[in-house]
Protein backbone atom coordinates (compact mmCIF):
# COMPACT_ATOMS: atom_id res chain seq x y z
CA UNK A 1 0.00 0.00 0.00
CA UNK A 2 1.27 3.52 -0.74
CA UNK A 3 1.86 5.36 2.52
CA UNK A 4 1.62 9.10 3.02
CA UNK A 5 5.38 9.70 2.92
CA UNK A 6 5.77 7.96 -0.40
CA UNK A 7 7.25 4.72 0.91
CA UNK A 8 6.17 1.51 -0.74
CA UNK A 9 4.85 -1.39 1.33
CA UNK A 10 6.77 -4.32 -0.04
CA UNK A 11 5.21 -6.92 2.23
CA UNK A 12 4.12 -9.99 0.30
CA UNK A 13 0.40 -10.55 0.00
CA UNK A 14 -0.61 -14.10 0.77
CA UNK A 15 -3.38 -14.13 -1.77
CA UNK A 16 -1.67 -16.72 -3.90
CA UNK A 17 -0.83 -19.01 -1.00
CA UNK A 18 -4.02 -20.58 0.40
CA UNK A 19 -5.51 -23.31 -1.71
CA UNK A 20 -8.82 -23.29 0.17
CA UNK A 21 -10.04 -20.40 -1.95
CA UNK A 22 -9.87 -22.19 -5.23
CA UNK A 23 -12.82 -24.14 -6.60
CA UNK A 24 -11.72 -27.55 -5.39
CA UNK A 25 -10.97 -26.24 -1.93
CA UNK A 26 -14.41 -24.68 -1.64
CA UNK A 27 -16.10 -27.85 -2.87
CA UNK A 28 -14.12 -29.95 -0.42
CA UNK A 29 -14.99 -27.58 2.39
CA UNK A 30 -18.68 -27.72 1.49
CA UNK A 31 -18.65 -31.51 1.34
CA UNK A 32 -16.84 -31.77 4.66
CA UNK A 33 -19.30 -29.37 6.26
CA UNK A 34 -22.26 -31.38 5.02
CA UNK A 35 -20.66 -34.65 6.18
CA UNK A 36 -19.94 -33.27 9.64
CA UNK A 37 -23.50 -31.89 9.90
CA UNK A 38 -25.00 -35.23 8.81
CA UNK A 39 -22.86 -37.16 11.28
CA UNK A 40 -23.85 -34.74 14.05
CA UNK A 41 -27.54 -35.15 13.28
CA UNK A 42 -27.18 -38.93 13.14
CA UNK A 43 -25.48 -39.00 16.54
CA UNK A 44 -28.23 -36.85 18.08
CA UNK A 45 -30.93 -39.06 16.51
CA UNK A 46 -29.19 -42.18 17.79
CA UNK A 47 -29.00 -40.76 21.29
CA UNK A 48 -32.73 -40.01 21.23
CA UNK A 49 -33.58 -43.48 19.96
CA UNK A 50 -31.54 -45.20 22.64
CA UNK A 51 -33.06 -43.22 25.52
CA UNK A 52 -35.23 -45.79 27.26
CA UNK A 53 -36.12 -45.86 30.90
CA UNK A 54 -34.72 -48.85 32.79
CA UNK A 55 -36.26 -49.39 36.21
CA UNK A 56 -33.69 -50.26 38.88
CA UNK A 57 -35.70 -53.25 40.04
CA UNK A 58 -36.42 -54.54 36.53
CA UNK A 59 -39.74 -55.35 34.88
CA UNK A 60 -42.39 -57.50 36.53
CA UNK A 61 -43.73 -59.92 33.92
CA UNK A 62 -47.33 -60.93 34.61
CA UNK A 63 -47.78 -64.50 35.85
CA UNK A 64 -50.02 -66.68 33.68
CA UNK A 65 -53.20 -68.05 35.21
CA UNK A 66 -54.42 -69.85 32.08
CA UNK A 67 -57.46 -68.60 30.21
CA UNK A 68 -60.76 -67.08 31.21
CA UNK A 69 -64.04 -66.25 29.48
CA UNK A 70 -65.10 -62.62 29.67
CA UNK A 71 -68.21 -61.45 27.86
CA UNK A 72 -68.26 -64.58 25.72
CA UNK A 73 -64.62 -64.19 24.65
CA UNK A 74 -61.83 -66.45 25.82
CA UNK A 75 -58.83 -64.42 26.94
CA UNK A 76 -55.46 -65.15 28.48
CA UNK A 77 -55.56 -64.55 32.22
CA UNK A 78 -52.50 -63.13 33.95
CA UNK A 79 -51.72 -61.70 37.36
CA UNK A 80 -49.66 -58.81 38.66
CA UNK A 81 -48.95 -57.90 42.26
CA UNK A 82 -47.23 -54.90 43.74
CA UNK A 83 -47.15 -52.69 46.78
CA UNK A 84 -47.25 -49.03 47.75
CA UNK A 85 -44.88 -48.00 50.51
CA UNK A 86 -44.68 -44.88 52.68
CA UNK A 87 -40.98 -44.59 51.92
CA UNK A 88 -38.48 -45.80 49.38
CA UNK A 89 -35.98 -47.62 51.54
CA UNK A 90 -37.02 -51.11 50.46
CA UNK A 91 -34.45 -53.53 49.14
CA UNK A 92 -34.02 -57.15 48.17
CA UNK A 93 -30.74 -58.95 48.79
CA UNK A 94 -29.15 -55.64 49.67
CA UNK A 95 -30.19 -53.96 46.41
CA UNK A 96 -32.32 -50.86 46.94
CA UNK A 97 -35.41 -50.50 44.76
CA UNK A 98 -35.19 -46.72 44.43
CA UNK A 99 -31.52 -45.78 44.62
CA UNK A 100 -31.85 -42.31 43.11
CA UNK A 101 -34.37 -40.57 45.33
CA UNK A 102 -35.00 -39.28 48.81
CA UNK A 103 -35.60 -42.26 51.16
CA UNK A 104 -38.62 -40.46 52.63
CA UNK A 105 -40.46 -40.42 49.31
CA UNK A 106 -43.40 -42.83 49.00
CA UNK A 107 -43.01 -45.38 46.25
CA UNK A 108 -44.55 -48.22 44.36
CA UNK A 109 -42.56 -51.44 44.64
CA UNK A 110 -40.86 -53.69 44.04
CA UNK A 111 -40.75 -52.13 40.62
CA UNK A 112 -42.74 -49.59 38.62
CA UNK A 113 -42.67 -51.31 35.24
CA UNK A 114 -44.99 -54.17 34.36
CA UNK A 115 -45.41 -56.39 31.32
CA UNK A 116 -48.67 -58.02 30.27
CA UNK A 117 -49.92 -59.70 27.09
CA UNK A 118 -52.24 -57.80 24.73
CA UNK A 119 -55.99 -58.30 25.02
CA UNK A 120 -55.73 -60.33 28.20
CA UNK A 121 -57.55 -60.25 31.51
CA UNK A 122 -55.07 -58.79 33.97
CA UNK A 123 -55.82 -59.29 37.65
CA UNK A 124 -53.87 -56.96 39.91
CA UNK A 125 -53.35 -57.33 43.64
CA UNK A 126 -52.03 -54.30 45.51
CA UNK A 127 -50.90 -54.16 49.11
CA UNK A 128 -51.19 -50.54 50.18
CA UNK A 129 -49.09 -49.65 53.28
CA UNK A 130 -49.23 -45.83 53.21
CA UNK A 131 -51.29 -43.17 54.95
CA UNK A 132 -53.16 -40.60 52.87
CA UNK A 133 -55.59 -37.72 52.79
CA UNK A 134 -57.92 -35.88 50.41
CA UNK A 135 -57.78 -35.94 46.64
CA UNK A 136 -57.75 -32.52 45.03
CA UNK A 137 -60.02 -33.96 42.31
CA UNK A 138 -62.55 -36.34 43.88
CA UNK A 139 -63.28 -37.93 40.51
CA UNK A 140 -60.17 -40.06 40.98
CA UNK A 141 -61.83 -41.76 43.97
CA UNK A 142 -63.96 -43.65 41.43
CA UNK A 143 -62.98 -47.02 40.00
CA UNK A 144 -62.89 -46.60 36.23
CA UNK A 145 -62.04 -49.00 33.42
CA UNK A 146 -61.93 -52.22 35.40
CA UNK A 147 -64.09 -55.27 34.72
CA UNK A 148 -67.50 -54.38 36.14
CA UNK A 149 -66.24 -50.93 37.09
CA UNK A 150 -65.32 -52.27 40.52
CA UNK A 151 -62.43 -53.34 42.72
CA UNK A 152 -62.32 -55.14 46.03
CA UNK A 153 -60.87 -53.55 49.15
CA UNK A 154 -60.05 -56.18 51.76
CA UNK A 155 -62.58 -58.44 50.03
CA UNK A 156 -65.35 -55.83 49.85
CA UNK A 157 -66.50 -54.81 46.37
CA UNK A 158 -66.48 -51.06 45.73
CA UNK A 159 -66.97 -48.74 42.76
CA UNK A 160 -65.50 -45.76 44.62
CA UNK A 161 -63.85 -44.99 47.92
CA UNK A 162 -63.90 -42.01 50.26
CA UNK A 163 -62.08 -39.20 48.38
CA UNK A 164 -60.85 -37.92 51.76
CA UNK A 165 -59.12 -41.16 52.69
CA UNK A 166 -56.96 -41.98 49.69
CA UNK A 167 -53.31 -42.97 49.82
CA UNK A 168 -52.55 -43.32 46.12
CA UNK A 169 -54.17 -44.16 42.80
CA UNK A 170 -53.11 -46.55 40.07
CA UNK A 171 -54.08 -44.64 36.94
CA UNK A 172 -53.19 -46.04 33.51
CA UNK A 173 -53.80 -44.43 30.16
CA UNK A 174 -53.10 -45.24 26.55
CA UNK A 175 -50.26 -43.30 24.99
CA UNK A 176 -50.00 -41.92 21.46
CA UNK A 177 -49.77 -44.91 19.16
CA UNK A 178 -51.66 -47.30 21.43
CA UNK A 179 -55.35 -47.36 22.34
CA UNK A 180 -56.15 -43.68 22.92
CA UNK A 181 -59.32 -44.48 24.86
CA UNK A 182 -57.70 -46.99 27.20
CA UNK A 183 -58.03 -45.81 30.78
CA UNK A 184 -57.99 -47.48 34.16
CA UNK A 185 -58.19 -45.68 37.49
CA UNK A 186 -58.20 -47.48 40.83
CA UNK A 187 -57.99 -45.51 44.09
CA UNK A 188 -56.08 -47.14 46.94
CA UNK A 189 -57.48 -46.38 50.42
CA UNK A 190 -55.18 -45.11 53.15
CA UNK A 191 -54.13 -47.12 56.16
CA UNK A 192 -55.26 -45.30 59.32
CA UNK A 193 -52.64 -43.46 61.33
CA UNK A 194 -49.01 -42.69 60.62
CA UNK A 195 -45.75 -44.56 60.62
CA UNK A 196 -47.10 -47.51 58.66
CA UNK A 197 -43.58 -48.57 57.80
CA UNK A 198 -43.27 -49.78 61.35
CA UNK A 199 -46.66 -51.23 62.07
CA UNK A 200 -46.90 -53.18 58.81
CA UNK A 201 -50.65 -52.64 58.33
CA UNK A 202 -51.92 -52.69 54.79
CA UNK A 203 -55.05 -52.57 52.65
CA UNK A 204 -55.45 -55.21 49.96
CA UNK A 205 -56.98 -53.96 46.71
CA UNK A 206 -57.77 -56.38 43.87
CA UNK A 207 -59.09 -55.47 40.45
CA UNK A 208 -59.07 -56.78 36.88
CA UNK A 209 -58.89 -55.04 33.52
CA UNK A 210 -58.58 -56.12 29.92
CA UNK A 211 -55.31 -54.97 28.41
CA UNK A 212 -55.25 -53.04 25.17
CA UNK A 213 -53.28 -53.56 22.01
CA UNK A 214 -49.50 -53.80 21.97
CA UNK A 215 -47.55 -50.76 23.06
CA UNK A 216 -46.33 -48.85 26.06
CA UNK A 217 -48.92 -47.44 28.44
CA UNK A 218 -48.13 -44.90 31.12
CA UNK A 219 -49.41 -45.02 34.69
CA UNK A 220 -49.07 -42.62 37.57
CA UNK A 221 -50.59 -41.72 40.92
CA UNK A 222 -53.19 -38.94 41.05
CA UNK A 223 -53.09 -38.41 44.81
CA UNK A 224 -50.90 -35.39 45.62
CA UNK A 225 -48.33 -37.31 47.67
CA UNK A 226 -45.21 -35.47 46.53
CA UNK A 227 -43.42 -32.28 47.44
CA UNK A 228 -43.32 -28.65 46.27
CA UNK A 229 -46.11 -27.09 44.15
CA UNK A 230 -49.47 -28.68 44.93
CA UNK A 231 -47.56 -31.71 46.26
CA UNK A 232 -46.94 -32.87 42.71
CA UNK A 233 -43.15 -32.59 42.83
CA UNK A 234 -40.54 -34.97 44.19
CA UNK A 235 -41.72 -38.57 43.91
CA UNK A 236 -44.66 -37.51 41.72
CA UNK A 237 -42.33 -36.00 39.16
CA UNK A 238 -39.45 -38.49 39.13
CA UNK A 239 -39.31 -41.87 37.46
CA UNK A 240 -39.52 -44.89 39.69
CA UNK A 241 -41.70 -43.72 42.55
CA UNK A 242 -45.27 -42.74 41.71
CA UNK A 243 -45.25 -43.41 37.98
CA UNK A 244 -44.13 -46.02 35.52
CA UNK A 245 -45.08 -47.97 32.44
CA UNK A 246 -47.14 -51.00 31.50
CA UNK A 247 -45.60 -52.75 28.52
CA UNK A 248 -48.23 -54.63 26.54
CA UNK A 249 -46.64 -57.29 24.33
Amino acid at each position, binding site marked *: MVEGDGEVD*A*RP*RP*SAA*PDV*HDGRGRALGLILTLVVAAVGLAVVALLFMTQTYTPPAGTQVARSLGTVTVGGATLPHVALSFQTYPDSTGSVNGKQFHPSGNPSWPAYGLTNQYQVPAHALVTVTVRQYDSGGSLNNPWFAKVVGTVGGTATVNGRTVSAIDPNNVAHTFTVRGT*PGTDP*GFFVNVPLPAVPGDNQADNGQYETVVFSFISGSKGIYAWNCEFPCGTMVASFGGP*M*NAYGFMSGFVRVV
Partner: protein
Amino acid sequence: MSAGAVFEPDPLPQEKPFFSRAAGRIFIIWLLMTAVGVFIGMWAPSHLLPNMLSGDGHTVVVTVMLFTVLAAPVAAFVYAVGAYSLVAWRRKDGGHPDEPPPDGPPMRGSGPATMVWLSVSVALVVVLLVWGLSEFTAAQAAQSNTLQVNVTGQQWLWTYSYPGTGVTSRSLVLPVNRPVQFNVTSEDVTHGFWPAALGVQVDANPDVVTVIQTTPDKLGGFTVRCSQLCGLYHAFMYSPGAVVTPQAFAVWLRAQGATAPAAAKTALVGSGAPA
Protein backbone atom coordinates in the same frame (compact mmCIF):
# COMPACT_ATOMS: atom_id res chain seq x y z
CA MET B 1 3.60 -12.90 -6.14
CA SER B 2 7.27 -12.47 -5.26
CA ALA B 3 8.48 -10.94 -1.99
CA GLY B 4 9.64 -7.79 -3.70
CA ALA B 5 6.50 -7.01 -5.67
CA VAL B 6 4.90 -3.58 -5.29
CA PHE B 7 1.68 -3.65 -3.28
CA GLU B 8 -0.97 -1.91 -5.39
CA PRO B 9 -3.98 -0.27 -3.74
CA ASP B 10 -7.34 -1.96 -4.23
CA PRO B 11 -9.39 -0.26 -6.89
CA LEU B 12 -12.63 1.32 -5.74
CA PRO B 13 -15.64 -0.73 -6.81
CA GLN B 14 -17.66 0.59 -9.69
CA GLU B 15 -20.85 1.29 -7.80
CA LYS B 16 -23.60 1.74 -10.34
CA PRO B 17 -23.09 -1.15 -12.77
CA PHE B 18 -22.13 -3.47 -9.95
CA PHE B 19 -25.23 -2.62 -7.90
CA SER B 20 -27.55 -2.90 -10.88
CA ARG B 21 -26.32 -6.37 -11.71
CA ALA B 22 -26.59 -7.41 -8.07
CA ALA B 23 -30.09 -5.97 -7.75
CA GLY B 24 -31.25 -7.99 -10.71
CA ARG B 25 -29.86 -11.19 -9.27
CA ILE B 26 -31.28 -10.49 -5.82
CA PHE B 27 -34.66 -9.81 -7.40
CA ILE B 28 -34.63 -13.18 -9.12
CA ILE B 29 -33.63 -14.97 -5.91
CA TRP B 30 -36.32 -13.04 -4.04
CA LEU B 31 -38.92 -14.02 -6.63
CA LEU B 32 -38.04 -17.71 -6.37
CA MET B 33 -37.98 -17.66 -2.57
CA THR B 34 -41.29 -15.80 -2.48
CA ALA B 35 -42.84 -18.37 -4.77
CA VAL B 36 -41.63 -21.17 -2.50
CA GLY B 37 -42.89 -19.34 0.59
CA VAL B 38 -46.30 -18.66 -0.93
CA PHE B 39 -46.59 -22.30 -1.99
CA ILE B 40 -45.72 -23.48 1.51
CA GLY B 41 -48.18 -20.96 2.97
CA MET B 42 -50.96 -22.19 0.71
CA TRP B 43 -50.21 -25.89 1.07
CA ALA B 44 -48.95 -26.49 4.60
CA PRO B 45 -51.82 -25.26 6.82
CA SER B 46 -54.45 -27.50 5.29
CA HIS B 47 -52.12 -30.50 5.15
CA LEU B 48 -50.22 -30.22 8.44
CA LEU B 49 -52.97 -28.98 10.75
CA PRO B 50 -55.62 -31.46 11.94
CA ASN B 51 -58.99 -31.92 10.29
CA MET B 52 -60.80 -28.92 11.72
CA LEU B 53 -64.17 -29.52 13.37
CA SER B 54 -65.24 -25.95 14.17
CA GLY B 55 -65.49 -22.52 12.60
CA ASP B 56 -62.61 -21.38 14.80
CA GLY B 57 -60.57 -24.27 13.49
CA HIS B 58 -61.21 -23.20 9.90
CA THR B 59 -60.27 -19.64 10.90
CA VAL B 60 -57.00 -20.91 12.32
CA VAL B 61 -56.20 -22.58 8.99
CA VAL B 62 -57.03 -19.44 7.00
CA THR B 63 -55.12 -17.22 9.44
CA VAL B 64 -51.98 -19.35 9.29
CA MET B 65 -52.29 -19.34 5.50
CA LEU B 66 -52.77 -15.56 5.28
CA PHE B 67 -49.96 -14.73 7.70
CA THR B 68 -47.53 -17.09 5.96
CA VAL B 69 -48.34 -15.78 2.49
CA LEU B 70 -48.01 -12.14 3.58
CA ALA B 71 -44.80 -12.85 5.44
CA ALA B 72 -43.26 -14.80 2.56
CA PRO B 73 -42.07 -11.82 0.45
CA VAL B 74 -40.69 -10.02 3.51
CA ALA B 75 -38.77 -13.07 4.71
CA ALA B 76 -37.66 -13.85 1.16
CA PHE B 77 -36.21 -10.34 0.77
CA VAL B 78 -34.12 -10.73 3.91
CA TYR B 79 -32.95 -14.20 2.93
CA ALA B 80 -32.23 -13.20 -0.69
CA VAL B 81 -30.10 -10.19 0.27
CA GLY B 82 -28.35 -12.22 2.97
CA ALA B 83 -27.63 -15.21 0.76
CA TYR B 84 -26.45 -13.09 -2.17
CA SER B 85 -24.22 -11.03 0.10
CA LEU B 86 -22.60 -14.09 1.58
CA VAL B 87 -21.79 -15.51 -1.84
CA ALA B 88 -21.09 -12.47 -4.03
CA TRP B 89 -19.74 -9.86 -1.64
CA ARG B 90 -17.44 -11.91 0.52
CA ARG B 91 -13.72 -11.08 0.41
CA LYS B 92 -12.20 -13.38 -2.17
CA ASP B 93 -8.45 -12.76 -2.09
CA GLY B 94 -7.82 -13.68 1.52
CA GLY B 95 -6.15 -10.32 2.22
CA HIS B 96 -3.04 -9.63 4.21
CA PRO B 97 -3.05 -10.81 7.83
CA ASP B 98 -2.14 -7.32 9.03
CA GLU B 99 -4.46 -5.43 6.70
CA PRO B 100 -8.06 -4.57 7.54
CA PRO B 101 -10.52 -5.31 4.74
CA PRO B 102 -11.10 -2.39 2.40
CA ASP B 103 -14.18 -0.26 2.89
CA GLY B 104 -17.19 -0.89 0.75
CA PRO B 105 -18.80 1.83 -1.33
CA PRO B 106 -20.32 4.63 0.76
CA MET B 107 -24.04 4.24 1.49
CA ARG B 108 -26.50 7.08 1.40
CA GLY B 109 -30.09 7.18 2.56
CA SER B 110 -32.90 6.92 0.04
CA GLY B 111 -36.13 8.74 0.75
CA PRO B 112 -38.33 6.75 -1.66
CA ALA B 113 -36.87 3.43 -0.48
CA THR B 114 -37.58 4.34 3.14
CA MET B 115 -41.13 5.39 2.29
CA VAL B 116 -41.82 2.15 0.42
CA TRP B 117 -40.32 0.07 3.19
CA LEU B 118 -42.30 1.80 5.93
CA SER B 119 -45.54 1.88 3.97
CA VAL B 120 -45.42 -1.81 3.12
CA SER B 121 -44.52 -2.76 6.67
CA VAL B 122 -47.28 -0.64 8.19
CA ALA B 123 -49.84 -1.93 5.70
CA LEU B 124 -48.93 -5.54 6.45
CA VAL B 125 -49.08 -5.05 10.20
CA VAL B 126 -52.41 -3.21 10.00
CA VAL B 127 -53.94 -5.93 7.85
CA LEU B 128 -52.81 -8.63 10.27
CA LEU B 129 -53.96 -6.63 13.31
CA VAL B 130 -57.42 -5.98 11.90
CA TRP B 131 -57.78 -9.57 10.79
CA GLY B 132 -56.68 -10.93 14.18
CA LEU B 133 -58.88 -8.59 16.23
CA SER B 134 -61.96 -9.22 14.10
CA GLU B 135 -61.59 -12.98 14.32
CA PHE B 136 -60.91 -12.82 18.05
CA THR B 137 -63.97 -10.66 18.64
CA ALA B 138 -66.14 -13.00 16.60
CA ALA B 139 -64.86 -16.01 18.54
CA GLN B 140 -65.67 -14.42 21.90
CA ALA B 141 -69.16 -13.21 21.01
CA ALA B 142 -71.83 -14.49 23.43
CA GLN B 143 -74.23 -17.02 21.95
CA SER B 144 -77.41 -18.63 23.17
CA ASN B 145 -77.91 -22.31 23.98
CA THR B 146 -74.30 -22.58 25.09
CA LEU B 147 -73.11 -25.87 26.56
CA GLN B 148 -70.92 -25.40 29.64
CA VAL B 149 -67.97 -27.74 30.12
CA ASN B 150 -65.62 -27.42 33.10
CA VAL B 151 -62.14 -28.49 32.07
CA THR B 152 -59.65 -29.49 34.77
CA GLY B 153 -56.02 -30.27 34.12
CA GLN B 154 -53.81 -32.03 36.60
CA GLN B 155 -50.60 -33.92 36.19
CA TRP B 156 -51.09 -35.52 33.69
CA LEU B 157 -54.73 -35.95 32.81
CA TRP B 158 -57.71 -33.90 31.71
CA THR B 159 -61.15 -34.34 33.20
CA TYR B 160 -64.34 -32.78 31.88
CA SER B 161 -67.45 -32.15 33.91
CA TYR B 162 -70.80 -31.14 32.52
CA PRO B 163 -72.48 -28.87 35.12
CA GLY B 164 -75.95 -29.93 36.15
CA THR B 165 -75.59 -33.50 34.95
CA GLY B 166 -73.29 -35.00 37.55
CA VAL B 167 -71.21 -36.32 34.69
CA THR B 168 -67.43 -36.15 34.77
CA SER B 169 -65.42 -37.91 32.12
CA ARG B 170 -61.93 -38.34 30.82
CA SER B 171 -63.29 -38.00 27.27
CA LEU B 172 -64.49 -34.69 25.85
CA VAL B 173 -67.74 -35.34 24.00
CA LEU B 174 -69.57 -32.44 22.35
CA PRO B 175 -72.78 -32.09 20.33
CA VAL B 176 -72.43 -30.72 16.82
CA ASN B 177 -73.64 -27.22 15.91
CA ARG B 178 -74.06 -26.11 19.50
CA PRO B 179 -71.86 -23.43 21.08
CA VAL B 180 -69.71 -24.69 23.91
CA GLN B 181 -67.99 -22.70 26.61
CA PHE B 182 -64.92 -24.22 28.23
CA ASN B 183 -64.20 -23.10 31.79
CA VAL B 184 -60.58 -24.13 32.13
CA THR B 185 -58.53 -24.49 35.32
CA SER B 186 -55.76 -26.58 36.83
CA GLU B 187 -55.35 -28.46 40.09
CA ASP B 188 -51.59 -28.06 40.27
CA VAL B 189 -49.25 -26.40 37.77
CA THR B 190 -49.96 -24.59 34.52
CA HIS B 191 -51.20 -26.82 31.71
CA GLY B 192 -52.35 -25.95 28.20
CA PHE B 193 -55.83 -27.02 27.07
CA TRP B 194 -55.41 -27.62 23.37
CA PRO B 195 -58.08 -29.41 21.32
CA ALA B 196 -56.34 -28.37 18.12
CA ALA B 197 -59.13 -29.57 15.82
CA LEU B 198 -61.52 -27.13 17.49
CA GLY B 199 -59.20 -24.17 16.95
CA VAL B 200 -58.98 -23.60 20.70
CA GLN B 201 -55.92 -23.24 22.88
CA VAL B 202 -55.80 -21.69 26.34
CA ASP B 203 -53.69 -22.07 29.46
CA ALA B 204 -55.10 -23.94 32.44
CA ASN B 205 -53.87 -22.04 35.49
CA PRO B 206 -54.32 -23.10 39.12
CA ASP B 207 -56.91 -21.08 41.08
CA VAL B 208 -58.02 -19.29 37.90
CA VAL B 209 -60.91 -20.14 35.58
CA THR B 210 -60.21 -19.10 32.01
CA VAL B 211 -63.17 -19.04 29.64
CA ILE B 212 -63.04 -19.76 25.94
CA GLN B 213 -65.73 -20.84 23.54
CA THR B 214 -66.24 -22.34 20.13
CA THR B 215 -68.91 -24.10 18.09
CA PRO B 216 -68.19 -27.56 16.68
CA ASP B 217 -69.69 -27.76 13.19
CA LYS B 218 -68.49 -31.11 11.94
CA LEU B 219 -68.73 -34.67 13.27
CA GLY B 220 -65.52 -36.49 14.06
CA GLY B 221 -62.92 -37.46 16.60
CA PHE B 222 -60.10 -35.33 17.92
CA THR B 223 -57.40 -35.30 20.55
CA VAL B 224 -56.91 -32.88 23.43
CA ARG B 225 -53.27 -32.29 24.22
CA CYS B 226 -51.38 -30.26 26.79
CA SER B 227 -49.50 -27.36 25.23
CA GLN B 228 -47.49 -26.35 28.29
CA LEU B 229 -44.48 -28.35 29.39
CA CYS B 230 -45.82 -29.54 32.75
CA GLY B 231 -43.56 -32.25 34.07
CA LEU B 232 -42.61 -35.88 33.81
CA TYR B 233 -45.56 -37.19 31.79
CA HIS B 234 -46.36 -34.06 29.80
CA ALA B 235 -45.96 -36.10 26.61
CA PHE B 236 -48.71 -38.45 27.80
CA MET B 237 -51.14 -35.74 28.85
CA TYR B 238 -53.85 -36.05 26.29
CA SER B 239 -57.38 -37.35 26.09
CA PRO B 240 -59.76 -38.46 23.35
CA GLY B 241 -62.60 -36.25 22.15
CA ALA B 242 -65.51 -36.49 19.75
CA VAL B 243 -68.10 -34.26 18.13
CA VAL B 244 -71.34 -36.25 17.89
CA THR B 245 -74.95 -35.69 16.99
CA PRO B 246 -77.22 -34.19 19.69
CA GLN B 247 -78.98 -37.55 19.98
CA ALA B 248 -75.70 -39.41 20.46
CA PHE B 249 -74.63 -36.79 22.99
CA ALA B 250 -77.79 -37.35 25.03
CA VAL B 251 -77.24 -41.11 24.91
CA TRP B 252 -73.63 -40.65 25.98
CA LEU B 253 -74.65 -38.45 28.91
CA ARG B 254 -77.12 -41.09 30.09
CA ALA B 255 -74.48 -43.80 29.73
CA GLN B 256 -72.16 -41.76 31.92
CA GLY B 257 -74.80 -41.73 34.61
CA ALA B 258 -76.30 -38.29 34.18
CA THR B 259 -78.19 -37.78 37.43
CA ALA B 260 -80.93 -35.32 36.48
CA PRO B 261 -81.68 -35.19 32.78
CA ALA B 262 -84.32 -32.45 33.05
CA ALA B 263 -82.20 -30.27 35.30
CA ALA B 264 -79.22 -31.09 33.21
CA LYS B 265 -80.95 -29.88 30.09
CA THR B 266 -81.77 -26.60 31.76
CA ALA B 267 -78.22 -26.18 32.95
CA LEU B 268 -76.72 -27.16 29.65
CA VAL B 269 -78.62 -24.57 27.68
CA GLY B 270 -77.72 -21.79 30.07
CA SER B 271 -74.95 -19.42 29.14
CA GLY B 272 -74.22 -17.89 32.50
CA ALA B 273 -71.13 -17.89 34.63
CA PRO B 274 -69.08 -21.07 35.09
CA ALA B 275 -70.53 -23.48 37.57
